[in-house]
């Protein structure tokens, strides 16, 4: 469990909490009475929901309502003003920016991150599998700066796949993807959930998520 007022920020690991408070090990992610304020404006107030393993939550709402902020709160990047964020799963984030070194080949740029993941298995093998999963194996040696917008988004998705994390936090993952790539995204999410993983997705584009709960903001 991570207290909202905890001063040290970013160590957001798999923290088991006693089951009695509803934020126990059985939950991948749990928000309890979370209030988020940005620039003096209340984005959401006393928000509570939980995502179990194999579960999915879809964050929807109009532009500027705080979908991305909710994802950042879940990732531990943004401290809520009150409430608790808990859950046992290791998190990984797909944000707006690609965060891949532009001059390096795609494979190496992804391997840098894979080596820093909590997953102990060989990073190179994980990256190779992830590149295959998002259909970018053929451009593994191409420098990141030459990738198109859609390919960059798929590369960011490959980093999520390669992380082996239990909880995927995806901020507008369908942005810049063509129809076939959105279908691929849906397949990857389904496979992740089938393997016991959970997802929290903020999106304004339609993504098919069977049995997903909806977190409606605004």
């Amino acid at each position, binding site marked *: 469990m991570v207290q909202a007022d905890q001063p040290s920020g*970013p160590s*957001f690991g798999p923290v088991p909490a006693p089951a009695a408070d509803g934020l126990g090990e059985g939950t991948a992610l749990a928000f309890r009475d979370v209030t988020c304020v940005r620039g003096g404006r209340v984005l959401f107030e006393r928000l509570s929901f939980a995502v179990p393993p194999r579960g999915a939550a879809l964050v929807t709402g109009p532009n500027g309502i705080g979908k991305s902020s909710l994802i950042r709160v879940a990732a531990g990047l943004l401290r809520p003003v009150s409430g608790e964020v808990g859950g046992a799963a290791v998190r990984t984030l797909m*944000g707006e920016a690609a965060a891949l*070194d532009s001059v390096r080949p795609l494979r190496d740029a992804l391997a840098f*991150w894979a080596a*820093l993941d*909590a997953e102990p298995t060989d990073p190179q093998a994980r990256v190779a599998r992830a590149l295959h999963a998002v259909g970018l194996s053929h451009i593994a040696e191409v420098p990141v700066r030459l990738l198109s917008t859609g390919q960059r988004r798929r590369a960011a998705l490959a980093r999520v796949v390669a992380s082996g994390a239990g909880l995927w936090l995806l901020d507008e993952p369908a942005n810049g993807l063509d129809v076939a790539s959105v279908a691929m995204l849906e397949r990857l999410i389904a496979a992740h959930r089938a393997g016991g993983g959970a997802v929290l997705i903020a999106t304004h584009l339609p993504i098919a998520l069977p049995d997903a709960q909806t977190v409606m903001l605004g």
Partner: protein
Amino acid sequence: MTGLGALITRDVRIAWASGGIVNALAFFLLVTILFPFAVGPDTALLARIGGGVIWAAALLAALMPVERLVGPDAEGGVLDQLSVRGFSMPTVAAAKIAAHWLGFGPPLMLATVVAAGLLGLSAQTLGAVELGLLIGTPGLAALAVATAALVTGLRGAGSVAGLVMLPLAVPLLIFGAGSIDGGVGALKLLGAVSLMLLAGAPFVAGAAMRSALE
């Protein structure tokens, strides 16, 4: 810790690939070449002020890459990804200081040999300058990273960085230039200032980077 090593390697690689190291060295040598033009070809005078000239040039060269030390990583989501992977921002800042020094300190000390030749410094003076730079450049690197973190996200970050960093670097300049003929006392004070900057900068930079995340 392998993660720290990976961060340092990445930053040194980026510094080389972006040409930042070569640019800073060229700038350093140009500044030292400008001085003889400004004060005239008086060998005795140049030999006397040469050590101080090298220190001032080193300070300006350290300022050159400040804009690319933290800003691109904050905008590009790199700090987000590191934070999600459990890195604390002071740790990231410490790695950046180490990487910045590796890419800047030793090459600068090599370039100083060339600059000493251009200014006609004696071997003894060159030795004193090199020893001072060895002690002082880690502090300079720490100050550069802290400044870079503080000005991240500001418009015109580069010019603001100069205003923030140069006054804080004055103690390094005083004791660094003073150590050339001032002996051991100035060297000890230079070491103290450098250590203080090294100890404090990761936390200052870390706090600034943390607030840039939010």
